[in-house]
């Protein structure tokens, strides 16, 4: 297994739920090549909120089936503290999906895979750190 990978943001998760076949091919191909993917649960919840019940099933099935995908919880103080450190630096009210993606990206030291780099413009403008983004279109 490749010891590093990508953190998936909410834009990627939403498109996967919407059955974007190109993105499904890419993510399953990552998994088969042993590229790890991480899904922060707050981004997952925000994506689910934007999807219909049938689309949610697709997203849940994907996170259950892929071998090298892991859900990143906020289950203990350490994760809550990491999230709080990012949230405190954001424009308020904080974009919690983005905050969790950044917290996980910083912790794992993996770049963020996004379907829309523009989604990050406002977030990046207010943060003191560089957000390491790879847009799906950059891989073409």
């Amino acid at each position, binding site marked *: 297994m490749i010891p*590093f990978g990508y953190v998936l943001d909410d834009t990627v998760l939403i498109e996967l739920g919407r059955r974007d*076949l190109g993105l*499904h*091919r890419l993510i399953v*191909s990552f998994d088969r090549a042993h*590229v790890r993917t991480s899904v922060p649960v707050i981004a997952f919840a925000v994506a689910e909120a934007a999807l219909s019940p049938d689309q949610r099933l*697709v997203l*849940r099935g994907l996170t259950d089936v892929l071998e090298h995908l892991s859900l990143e919880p906020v289950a203990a103080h350490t994760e809550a503290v990491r999230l709080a450190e990012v949230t405190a630096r954001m424009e308020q009210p904080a974009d919690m999906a983005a905050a969790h993606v950044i917290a996980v990206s910083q912790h794992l030291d993996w770049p963020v895979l996004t379907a829309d780099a523009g989604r990050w413009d406002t977030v990046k403008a207010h943060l003191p750190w560089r957000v*390491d983004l790879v847009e799906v279109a950059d891989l073409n």
Partner: protein
Amino acid sequence: MLTELLDQHETEKTRARLAYQEVLAHAEEDTEAMTQAERRTERAIRILRAREAGR
């Protein structure tokens, strides 16, 4: 009651897996597009390796 809840959980999980597998089967029908996805994955791996090498 607990058995019922567990059964319900398993049913939901199975439905979700089936929903994903159906999408995946559809995605894999286009073998040329799958080959393109593998090439994009190679680029994604090169980005990760370059990032690691730059540290």
